[in-house]
């Protein structure tokens, strides 16, 4: 670990750079609070979905629609991306900007693959199953819940991509570190929400 690195590591960077300044601590705290609000948001969407999940209005039902292998693959990609974002934060705590950047790149690539699968899934439903937003209350609830999650992933993708750019330009500092840390929190949150979606929407749709 002591070998001199070519990367521009700042020797003075504190161990947990995201919490080194009041601004950084505020950011992390406020982000926890924000995630509390997000939890209510998704909770409401889940409640709506549960209330309407059998209202298929003579359209396709969950059981007819879902292909678990596809969803399992998507789940795997997203879970893996959560793991790589953990590696990124660990690299940050070891003050390795280059490793940090690489892990972040892997994370957004996995996120993009996940999104690709989801877009493919949605377009299959619309084209072959005639299952669109207006088909039934079930379809509306499905697209809104899963779509909201997808929009969150897309936002996280752009966000982390911007941070990667910032990291290359400004290096790892007490200003950039809280942003990266917070984006990783966000990414884990999205992942947790997906686990619930996988269970409540897909598994329950297949067997429940």
């Amino acid at each position, binding site marked *: 670990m002591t070998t001199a690195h070519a990367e521009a590591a700042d020797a003075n960077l504190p161990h947990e750079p995201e919490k080194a300044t*009041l601004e950084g601590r505020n950011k992390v*705290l406020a982000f926890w609070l924000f995630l509390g*609000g997000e939890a209510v948001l998704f909770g409401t969407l889940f409640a*709506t979905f549960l*209330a*309407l999940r059998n209202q298929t209005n003579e359209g396709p039902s969950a059981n007819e629609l879902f292909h678990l292998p596809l969803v399992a693959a998507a789940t795997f990609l997203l879970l893996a991306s959560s793991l790589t974002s953990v590696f990124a934060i660990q690299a940050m705590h070891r003050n390795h900007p280059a490793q940090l950047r690489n892990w972040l790149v892997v994370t957004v690539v996995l996120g993009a693959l996940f999104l690709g699968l989801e877009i493919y899934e949605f377009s299959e439903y619309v084209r072959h199953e005639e299952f669109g937003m207006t088909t039934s209350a079930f379809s509306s609830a499905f697209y809104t819940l899963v779509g909201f999650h997808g929009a969150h992933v897309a936002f996280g993708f752009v966000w982390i991509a911007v941070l990667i750019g*910032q990291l290359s330009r400004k290096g790892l500092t007490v200003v950039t570190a809280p942003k990266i840390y917070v984006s990783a929190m966000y990414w884990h949150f999205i992942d947790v929400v997906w686990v619930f979606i996988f269970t409540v929407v897909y598994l329950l749709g297949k067997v429940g």
Partner: protein
Amino acid sequence: MDWITTVDHKKIAVLYLWAGGFFFGIGGLEAILIRIQLIKPMNTFLDAQTFNELITMHGTTMIFLGVMPIIFALMNAVIPLQIGARDVAFPFLNALGFWTFLFGGLLLNLSWIMGGAPDAGWTAYTPLSSADYSATHGVDFYTIGLQIAGLGTLIGGINFLATIITMRAPGMSFMRMPMFAWATFITSAIILFAFPAITVGLVLLTFDRILGANFFDVAGGGNPVLWQHIFWIFGHPEVYILILPAFGIISEVIPTFSRKRLFGYSSMVFATILIAFLGFMVWAHHMFTTGLGPVANALFSVSTMLIAVPTGIKIFNWLFTMWGGQVRFTSANLFAVGFIPTFTMGGVTGVMLASAPADFQFHDTYFVVAHFHYVIVGGLVLGLFSGLHYWWPKMFGRMLSETLGKWTFWTFIIGFHMTFFVQHFLGLMGMQRRVFTYLPNQDFDLLNLISTIGAGLMGVGMIIFLLNVFLTSRKPADAGNDPWEDGRTLEWTIPSPPPEYNFKQTPLVRGLDAFWKEKTAGHKAMTPSEPVGSIHMPSATPLPFVMSVGIFIAGLGFMFSRDEFGSAVMSFLFNNYIVTALGLLITFGSMLLRSLYDDHGWHIEPEELEGS
């Protein structure tokens, strides 16, 4: 320009005050029009459609665009000062919250001139608010306008939570925090957990109306009662978002003007937390008549009545604070004292309504209208008046005229009771709410006349207040640090209005009512907790304003995305979501700019500090 780019919490407070006051005025005019229509039976002053639009916009405007921003104005003006902070945790977000609220409110009110205001009631019950029954864009303005304004509220809530958690002056433990700061803290927590629910509700309703989704449409498998659940799981906590800050204000004003510490401080804190917690458990008391069944009704009935316990504790604590105190009836204190019985009456009718079988009788009558106006106007608005008269010298450096303040109080409170007291009886006699007229000879005539005259008197009170504000603004700004002379909390230790950086040196807090404690120990000022040093300040920026303009454009674009236009260019721009995309681009582009160019702020050096 200064006002558009400011990130100073004190200036943002003033912005909130003017904008909230402006919408409050619009809501007031709408109320007067409603009351003129109801002044006599079978009146033809307004038609039914206009009446529906007026009551919808009156309720929506008053709650979301009138009183909430004025609450935020007081919080912004006072909270950092009360906790001994130089600013809020996120000055940039603070400005963003204000601008999104303002543009959401403007969007909502554009509906008046763009083809019809929302007309489904402030609760927007489905299917009334569905595209089938409400065919103009009115309800779209409601869903999208409120969505944008709600974003601002949520941002503000998170900001206050973070500020209060991390930025209290040394020595100010939570149990030494002034009650208004506690109220702000708990209110913000309620905002954080209640607003996302309405965010989702508004999205679902927007999708139903604009994208043809089926959430609330029975024909497509949807469920209208779902809307009521989502609305009220937000809506009931919302009424505590309104009333807890008023409780906070009363708990500051009464001790100051009684020259005594607040009786039962810890029980006040505890009661506030309990009210907030119970507030989330009682939403279905708005739905007793929906047909949830006797078990659900009984549970929600009992949990609702429980809220009367912590509320009662508060009322007795205020009374015990005045008991044996040297009470001074300044205008601020008149409003605070007037608050107590008025709000209590609203609480009593609340408990009556909470009894499910009785509610079958009261529901959707003027009894409910009387109840919630007693709590919202007789409670919150009196509380806001009290707070405004109390903190005006701190905010603007000028004392409001006491004589005019007392005139405001008496006209307003007499007008208020005239307007709403009789509505209890109208309700018990069966007069329905939300109906644009009534038949003669049902014993409704005289009481309605009295009610309308009372509303006029409240209007007179408002005008006297505005006159007071106007005359005061022409006086010299000569209020001292502690103009009431009995100030107990930290905001009274610094000049009025406070300098940009609030505290030259962060004070050291040595007890509850920090300033009072120093005064009784014979000190004239607070002991500082740090040497005089250079002070870091955030820089002004137009980005929050630009971001909100972007959201505003995106909202309009989405709203008209399915419309047919006379001009081909317009159709092209709207139907392909190009306007929406443009708006979002402006917003996200600004976010990107914000992220790329770090704002390091600037410093005020010790030599530049006044009076150093």
